[in-house]
């Protein structure tokens, strides 16, 4: 079956005329297969205490936000909630590394990142509350709507980043995808476009080990998801997603890399969702309590708090102060969600097109008549 009595190996470098563009050295593209960590390593001593404290406060708020949203679900105030509990370091860092004029393209689980960008929880959660598809002004907050069809927002991030560069703006777009989402064709097409256009985009893959029930081993055979960068000629980085300092550092560098024109970056953050997929999911069907417990040890909040306490950067009062700020947010959420949202059925027709079509006008009239009859009947 073989032509040669020895297996094929590298050959002398004789190469035909080059119509195929430059071939780049792949070595710089290869991510370190060990995730980058800071907390708990000697490097942690050199970290900026102020930034660490800031991250800590954001994590505490983030955790409280996740808890409160989960509670709202139980109270029937949200239709569904996919908690990012356990992934708060990724959520908070993704927002923190962006400038105000940068854009965030979140996935469906990333409401916390949206809140961390400055969107009010009631607006960030509108989709999941169910009164409207979307809450905030995307242009005002430079934050795209939550994308439910997985990875489909990734090409949007590339297009926006490229458009910004065409306009001469040094704007970066950051988009988040789950480990499961990396299997979608749109993820591939986005990375490839980004590579070819050298667009200033950062792809943050939050690898929490599962796509609903499907573990990573059934999702990908890659050494790490960061290694997918190689096939697009872009940089890949692997980071411990539960180490807030590390995620922040790696993402901040990635954003600067992209902003400075050195091209897109794919960051894989290894993390874990401590809650079920959503409130509708039963996680005991596919993972063990032991596994969850082991990851609880690596809870990003606990990890950072341990560091701060060990380095005497925070005391009980500081912890309490952070918790108090978090309670304020929770109280605001309760108040906002306690009120029934205003619903205008006629709004169904107002934004399908800039101008309603004649067909929509007819249909709106039908609904208006029904509503009037309903009101009369009351």
């Amino acid at each position, binding site marked *: 079956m073989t032509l040669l009595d020895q297996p094929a190996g590298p050959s002398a470098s004789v190469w035909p005329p080059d119509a195929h563009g430059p071939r780049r050295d792949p070595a710089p593209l290869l991510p370190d297969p060990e995730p980058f960590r800071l907390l708990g390593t000697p490097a942690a001593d050199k970290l900026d205490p102020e930034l660490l404290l800031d991250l800590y406060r954001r994590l505490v708020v983030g955790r409280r936000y996740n808890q409160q949203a989960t509670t709202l679900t139980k109270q029937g105030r949200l239709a*569904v909630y996919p908690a990012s509990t356990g992934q708060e370091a990724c959520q908070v860092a993704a927002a923190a590394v962006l400038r105000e004029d940068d854009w965030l393209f979140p996935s469906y689980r990333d409401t916390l990142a949206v809140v961390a960008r400055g969107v009010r929880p009631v607006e960030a959660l509108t989709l999941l509350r169910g009164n409207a598809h979307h809450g905030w002004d995307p242009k005002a907050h430079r934050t795209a709507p939550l994308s439910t069809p997985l990875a489909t927002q990734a090409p949007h991030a590339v297009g926006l980043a490229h458009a910004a560069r065409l306009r001469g703006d040094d704007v970066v777009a950051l988009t988040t995808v789950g480990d499961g989402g990396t299997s979608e064709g749109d993820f591939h097409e986005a990375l490839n476009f980004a590579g070819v256009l050298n667009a200033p985009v950062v792809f943050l893959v939050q690898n929490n080990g599962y796509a609903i029930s499907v573990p990573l081993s059934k999702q990908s055979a890659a050494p790490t998801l960061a290694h997918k960068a190689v096939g697009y000629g872009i940089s890949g980085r692997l980071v411990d997603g539960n180490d807030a300092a590390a995620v922040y550092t790696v993402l901040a560098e990635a954003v600067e890399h992209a902003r400075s024109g050195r091209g897109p970056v794919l960051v894989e953050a290894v993390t874990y969702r401590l809650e079920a997929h959503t409130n509708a999911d039963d996680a005991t*069907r596919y993972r063990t309590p032991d596994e969850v417990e082991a990851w609880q040890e690596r809870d990003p909040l606990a990890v950072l708090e341990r560091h701060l306490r060990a380095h005497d950067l925070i005391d009980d009062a500081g912890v309490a102060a952070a918790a108090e700020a978090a309670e304020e947010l929770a109280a605001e959420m309760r108040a906002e969600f306690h009120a029934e949202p205003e619903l205008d059925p006629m709004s169904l027709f107002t934004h399908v097109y800039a101008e309603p079509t004649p067909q929509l006008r007819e249909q709106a009239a039908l609904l208006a008549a029904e509503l009037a009859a309903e009101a009369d009947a009351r």
Partner: protein
Amino acid sequence: MSTATATPAGSTTMAQALNGALRDAMREDPNVLVMGEDVGTLGGVFRITDGLAAEFGADRCLDTPLAEAGILGSAVGMAMYGLRPVVELQFDAFAYPAFEQLLSHVAKMRNRTAGRLPLPITIRIPYGGGIGGVEHHSDSSEAYYAHTPGLHVVTPATVADGYGLLRAAIASDDPVVFLEPKRLYWSKDDVTPGPVEPIGRAVVRRQGTSATLLTYGPSLPVCLEAAEAARAEGWDLAVVDLRSLTPFDDETVCAAVRATGRAVVVHEATGFGGVGAEIAARVMERCFHHLAAPVLRVTGFDIPYPPPMLERHHLPGVDRILDAVARLQWEQ
């Protein structure tokens, strides 16, 4: 054809009937294989594949990577090798990434190879609204499939049909898009599974003399309810459950419309270019001189599916159906 064995007599949900159909088909034919996102360990997000991985192993109830074109595309290759894949696409709107595979390969393979490569693939898609789902979780996409030659498109509205039609779909040597009305998953009925009939026959669910409601899937219970309510208005409505959109049962439908001379088509999907347009058009073509009024349509509006708190205004309800019946020019 075969009869149900695993489906318990007595009170059964449609979800259980579907599950039983899969199990029975897998027991009878080792070539039947279930695949999709979360179908294995989890048993599917709607639990339709519950217990199948345990009984038949992970290879025959395959948890796939999260990529719908890859799922359907690899099912094509499996079918070419003699398997009969039953593919689950998790929600209506998440079937769209597989559209290219469906249209350019699945629907066409038998035709382009002059019958040499039939593709016995069943594509299960939970569809429709009324479950309080957020955007992309409540689409009614049947019109896309029904317009695509080479696909059969069926949708059960009763628990018994959940079993019977799914068995028929798996037994079919052609690709079948099997649309499962999400909001009927927990509907219950006594199932007395009979012989599995081939796909293609509509059924008159309610006899009536005044006008005929033509519907399918999630709108059947609404139409039956409307027919009950119509009695108070003095109307005796017939209700036809299409069950199969392709092939279309002109015979049953036209007979039912001719018998009353008036008809309303009801479905959840957007009206413009929806399956209801086809039904209305073909009924009028075939029954023109039997009609006292045009065939009217009660459908979802021509808008993206609304957020949960507003969906009731979009979905055809009893009142809207009765209003349409009232517009059937009774005075003439």
